[in-house]
């Protein structure tokens, strides 16, 4: 079986005849198997091969879909892909997915700004200065619906 098509992508590539006295981590193969975004968020990684939990403790229940968890999910996919692309800049499929999620995030952030409030000082808005409106992200009530 082709090593790149392993179902969980837990194996990577090491250099042949590697120089001595160096630290090695196998290179993650291109186009690795990924979770669906809501599952990736709760597992803490989009990559099945990097999901290595402690003593079988895993988050199973998906988050409720709120405008904020939608944004968090889209942002998480972009962030995970960005770090992958930092070391795999020529993976065309990852780049395509990164661009697609950038478009979705931008759209979602604009809708959030229109209906709930600004995500940052650069979101265009109208009316009163909503930036100060509660809740702030670290408060329980900002997260209780998630």
């Amino acid at each position, binding site marked *: 079986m082709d090593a790149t098509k392993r179902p969980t992508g837990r194996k990577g590539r090491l*250099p042949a005849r590697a*120089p001595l*006295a*160096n*630290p*090695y*981590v*196998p*290179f*993650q193969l291109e186009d690795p198997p990924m979770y669906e975004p809501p599952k990736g*968020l*709760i*597992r*803490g*990684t989009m*990559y099945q091969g*990097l*999901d*290595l*939990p*402690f*003593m079988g*403790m*895993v*988050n199973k229940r998906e*988050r409720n879909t709120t405008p*904020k*968890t939608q*944004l*968090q999910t889209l*942002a*998480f996919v972009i*962030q*995970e892909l*960005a*770090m*992958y692309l*930092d*070391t*795999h*800049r020529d993976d065309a499929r990852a780049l395509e997915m990164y661009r697609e999620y950038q478009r979705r995030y931008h759209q979602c952030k604009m809708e959030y700004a229109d209906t709930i*409030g*600004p*995500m*940052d*000082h*650069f979101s265009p808005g109208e009316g009163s200065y909503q*930036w100060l409106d509660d809740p*702030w*992200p*670290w*408060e*329980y009530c900002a*997260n*209780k619906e*998630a």
Partner: protein
Amino acid sequence: MFVYEKKLQYPVKIARPNPRLAALIISQYGGPDGELGASLRYLSQRYSMPFDELKGLLTDIGTEELGHLEMIGAIVHQLTRNMKDEQYRDPAFAPYFVDHTAGVYPTAASGFPWSAASMAVKGDPIADLTEDLAAEQKARVTYDNILRLSDDPDVNDVIKFLRAREVVHFQRFGEAIQLLREKLDRKNVYFMNPAMDI
């Protein structure tokens, strides 16, 4: 520059205040393997990195660690809200309470305040990236230990997320070392310091 986004990377909703547990979690805010040290380590090391992939990766992971610092702050804040008398009098929390009340202060669970001595910036990319591999492992073990100590499902939900991120970062730092090595002298990667000599 940095721009604040008014959201956490991952939701933190702790139903039951528990200052005893907050006194342990605070170690990932300001302890030796905590998120403050992680973000400062990577965001400081990046200046002497010689190649684009290394500059980019340290910037991206260092920025994510700032988001984790905020999540740990949120856990500590929510665990110490609406405290009752007997909760702040708890001998496990009272020493923190006397100095910081319900504020969030960067300290280890042992009471040792955050110290730059818990991180390193050596100015040599192989040395710094090897430190980063170790740093991710130490943070991962701290989260393992928190999972052993805590039986609060709301806290553990967030800790499992943060722990998984350490594993991903370890992988990327390992790949970064390989990318670096490919650009160095094939016979002797220690021939010179690529932060200074190329």
